[in-house]
């Protein structure tokens, strides 16, 4: 399980995360909500070792991984699907996927590769094409599939549904749910709060770098202010 406690992240001009604590448990989806600039991505990036945590602790299955190099964190079984796709544009689709399975055993990686192709047939069609030529949504699928390749024990997803068509959002979030069911700890940042809430077990809401709500999804769904903040006034009327 992933446990983030009292995390602080500072940039030159601002302190983006101030004392955030949250956790992701195997078999459950923890949804992180928050407005633009709330510090969601910064939290995830710090947990993945991409930015330095100014203070605080990140633990994976009880072991302290704060400040560990990103690749070491991956080897311990936690991956991050970064914000904004970031596929390796000049490499082929398949090369991107193979790289995703860099730390995995070869046969395990082959198995996941087949599953990814099943989930996203377009990727299989384009396996030999350059990833940079895919459409925005296709790249998002690739980024998601790439993260699956390492068969992680914990996964952090930063807006995996961004740029996806509704059908695709459904299948990606469905896949996220399935992952959790299979015993993986999932930390999900999702702007599509409506759908996110549907698959989440726990919800953490952030504002200006701090946690302002934390609790089970059912409680979030009935919490007027959470709804207002992330689903809009309309959600309350309903």
């Amino acid at each position, binding site marked *: 399980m992933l446990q983030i406690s009292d995390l602080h992240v500072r*940039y*030159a*001009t*601002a302190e983006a995360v101030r004392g955030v604590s949250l956790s992701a448990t195997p078999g459950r989806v923890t949804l992180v*909500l*928050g*407005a*633009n*600039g*709330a510090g969601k*991505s910064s939290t995830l990036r710090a947990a993945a070792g991409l930015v330095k945590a100014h203070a605080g602790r990140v633990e994976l299955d009880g072991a302290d991984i704060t400040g560990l190099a990103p690749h070491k964190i991956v080897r311990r079984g936690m991956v991050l699907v970064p*914000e*904004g*796709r970031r596929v390796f544009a000049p490499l082929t689709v398949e090369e991107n996927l193979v790289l995703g399975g860099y730390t995995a055993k070869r046969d395990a990686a082959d198995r996941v590769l087949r599953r990814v192709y099943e989930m996203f047939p*377009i990727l299989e069609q384009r396996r030999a094409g350059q990833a940079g*030529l*895919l*459409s*925005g*949504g*296709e790249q*998002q*699928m690739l980024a998601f599939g790439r993260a699956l390749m390492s068969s992680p024990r914990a996964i952090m997803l930063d*807006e995996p549904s*961004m*740029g*996806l*068509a*509704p*059908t*695709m*959002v*459904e299948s990606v979030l469905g896949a996220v749910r399935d992952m959790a069911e299979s015993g993986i700890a999932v930390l999900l940042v999702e*702007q*599509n*709060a*409506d*759908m996110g809430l549907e698959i989440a077990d726990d919800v953490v809401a952030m504002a200006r770098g701090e946690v302002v709500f934390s609790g089970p999804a059912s409680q979030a769904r009935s919490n007027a202010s959470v709804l*207002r*903040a*992330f*689903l*809009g006034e*309309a*959600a309350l*009327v*309903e």
Partner: protein
Amino acid sequence: MTTTQDRGASAAPAAGTTVLETVDVAVHYGGIKAVDGIDMKLETGRILGILGPNGSGKSTLLGAITRLVPLTRGRVLLDGEDYGRTPPSKLAHRGIARTFQTVRLLPDLPVLGNIQLGADLRLNRATRWRELVRRSVPESVTEAIERTGVGDVLDLLPGELSYGTARRVEIARALASRPRVLMLDEPTAGMNQPERLEVADLLRKLRDEGLTQLLVEHDVQMMVDTCDRLLAMNQGKHVAEGAPADVVRDPAVQEAYLGKRWNRAADQ
């Protein structure tokens, strides 16, 4: 579910005349037919929405219209005149502005500079020189900043912005040129529901002021609420077109694009 269908109120002066038109436009990459024979009309003071599954050719169509992607076949017309041979940089001068699906801000320029970039083509010689002496900012820029609400981050560099804020800056840049036609490629990706509504509000307000828009989005609710017409694409081809409510009810669109969830919502 409230849908703000205030189309009737939007009758800007010349509303309804065709500004921009594509005739049988196709873009092929080898065997990939990204866009394959699209006819489309953009009318003044209206918002045309384009939706379609991932990879259906929406962004490519936008690229073709803005001449950043070469056409395989077909014609593109602005005010009834074929501009298929005009250099792409001339289009901006004729009032076409666009945003891209990915964030494309200049990393070394602070946010303000990035927004000003949009307005630069409108400056005359005198204002250009004046800017050198005292750093004045054109009114269109201040207005765009105000409308998109990025006033707080003007002296940050793009690398220091969160994703959603960066997208707003892009919209501001496009607005700063005071365009006649605005094309937006997934402007609200990465924003949450209230933020999206805010952008949708802005777009509607702009439309009411007479700005013609082409909007590509995956947020169907927003599309229905915002657009005057919808065009649905699949695999580069035209699938359905018409009033938003009709298009989203079209079985072909539901099948290819919307999925179970929307069906459920629509059935209610």
